[in-house]
């Protein structure tokens, strides 16, 4: 068991493309860190650098006290679960799990013991003689997990392990991975582009964008206090609404550009007339009575999900007005063409710098 430390880790490819622009982070012993971000943000590259599949251009990665930059993947004592599982197609489930141990010259009875234990944990006992081709997606996923577990590594690396599964299985495997990780207490890095997976699995999140860690923190902290407009838009589903606005001259709130709507917000740190980007989460917009409403949205599309109803619309004003999505209770009936009066608590009004996207306190 060991923690994991990144200091100033950068990746520059030989063709000059810079994938990772300097990550500093530390992962505690037994912690599960989820690296989340859109495709091409460098999250997989970061993971592969930990695995040793990509060279580290600059900086240092330590597993425990050991600098691993120069070590071969096999010598880093890590185990990786790949997106397409990467099981050896011609080997039985048992051999798939045992292969790494055999290469490390683990005694035969020790291999048998570890594989049996992993198979028991993952309910693969009846499948040990089969080949990957004869397994379902979920079972293959488990074998891939089993291959990682038997190595008893310092760090688990997961590279979007659930994205090849169907929605139901994904939820189930998500729970299994979490349970397993907690019972084994192994330090884990988990890469995903799915923010629901990120929120549910993570002890802490690293939200990456364009090769930079935009925010590192506990899932709920990231949700409540996103450090940048990017993080705010990426974490949370449906995504946060962004409205261009200016700080009111009175210093008590913001005026949504082009609509005349005024929102009460904590703007004490901002000078009046300053342009800002207002972020409102769809679930924080609450229906209100006509006269107490801060915003009125003209609904042009309704998605009824059962438990919730998502209403998409625009804030009427001069011109088209900014678009807005609202999450309403499923029992509430909304029709296209309705105007829904809304209110929002000042605590839930996020303000960002329109230039660099940083959060304004």
């Amino acid at each position, binding site marked *: 068991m060991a923690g994991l430390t990144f200091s100033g880790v950068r990746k520059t490819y030989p063709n000059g493309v810079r994938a990772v622009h300097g990550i500093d982070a530390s992962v505690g012993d037994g912690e599960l860190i989820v690296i989340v971000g859109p495709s091409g943000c460098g999250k997989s590259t970061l993971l592969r650098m930990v*695995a*040793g*599949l990509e060279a580290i251009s600059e900086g240092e990665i330590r597993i425990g006290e050991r600098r691993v930059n120069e070590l*071969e*993947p*096999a010598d880093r004592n*890590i*185990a*990786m679960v*790949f*997106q*397409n599982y*990467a*099981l*050896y*197609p*011609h080997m039985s489930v048992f051999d798939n799990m045992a*292969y*790494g141990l055999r*290469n*490390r010259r683990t005694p035969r009875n020790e291999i048998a013991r570890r594989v049996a234990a992993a198979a028991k944990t993952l309910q693969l006992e009846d499948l040990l003689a089969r080949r990957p*081709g004869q397994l379902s997606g979920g079972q293959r996923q488990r074998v891939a997990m089993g*291959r990682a577990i038997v190595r008893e590594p310092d760090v688990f690396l997961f590279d979007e392990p659930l994205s090849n599964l169907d929605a139901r299985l994904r939820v189930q495997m998500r729970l299994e991975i979490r349970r397993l990780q907690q019972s084994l207490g192994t330090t884990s890095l988990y890469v995903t582009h799915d923010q629901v997976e990120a929120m549910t699995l993570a002890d802490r999140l690293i939200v990456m964008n364009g090769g930079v860690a935009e925010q590192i923190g506990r899932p709920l902290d990231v949700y409540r206090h996103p450090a940048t407009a990017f993080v705010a838009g990426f974490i949370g589903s449906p995504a946060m609404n962004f409205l261009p606005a200016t700080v009111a001259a009175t210093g008590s709130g913001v005026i949504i550009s082009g609509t005349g709507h005024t929102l009460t917000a904590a703007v004490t740190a901002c000078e009046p007339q300053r342009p800002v980007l207002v972020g409102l989460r769809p679930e924080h917009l609450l229906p209100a009575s006509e006269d107490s409403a801060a915003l009125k949205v003209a609904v042009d599309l309704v998605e009824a999900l059962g438990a919730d109803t998502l209403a998409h619309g625009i804030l009427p004003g001069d011109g088209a007005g900014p678009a807005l999505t609202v999450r309403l209770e499923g029992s509430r009936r909304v029709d296209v063409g309705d105007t829904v009066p809304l209110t929002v608590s000042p605590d839930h009004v996020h303000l960002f710098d329109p230039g660099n996207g940083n959060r304004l306190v």
Partner: protein
Amino acid sequence: MIERRPWLNVLSHFVLCAGVLVTALPIWITFVASTHPADSLMSGRAPLWPGAHLFENYATVLDSGLRAAGSVPVGMMMWNSLIMALMIAVGKIVISIIAAFGIVYFRFPLRRTCFWLIFVTLMLPVEVRILPTFGVVASLEMLNSYWGLSVPLIASATATFLFRQFFLTVPEELAEAARIDGAGPLKFLFDILLPLSRTNIAALFVILFIFGWNQYLWPLLVTTDESFYTIVVGIQRMLAVDDAEPAWHLIMATTMLAMLPPVLVVICMQRLFIKGLIEQEK
């Protein structure tokens, strides 16, 4: 594809039957000729039904060969052919797997150039480079040896290309997983890549064995010692007799025997062969 057009069925069956006839008739005539005595073939009319001398002719061929016509026993020539064909087939497969493995899995300077150099040799078959190759083989004193028969034919751009294409379809993650599992390049090659290429190797073996077995020009050049004659060359020698009629019945019997090993290889490896041609197990 399911179509309900009776006349199309009739037409396609006709074409197929005609094709079978065209392919099978010469083989049948060869077989028939190998069962007749010498004089019945000299009468000017080729018989269409087997005669009574089947065992006699084959026994003669296998036992003594055409000593009278100045040839060596067929058994020995078949042995030579077998050695040569096996050496060529195995050699080609080994060399091209190693070459393709290097080209696909290793980054080294001029990797692409190397690949294209190999590929370009497709344009230089043995017939084109036969004189210089003969010169090299002669100065290496490999004339009249099994090495001389097989080594110059072993380098194979086609097989290298086939294996390269196959290796490219093997997911990269498999190599990465093996690396994490502590398998070095050679271990990865033997434990993972070769078992996955099993069907490709079988298919290629069949093709290359037949290629090797049917070699004519090169064995004709490099063998002057009768004990290294291959069967295909031997058949030609049987025809080239002075002052006598070729012993057609025995030549045909030899031809039938010469066809046997390739047919056996195809039949034995048919399942793997077809699998290798049509699907890739992943």
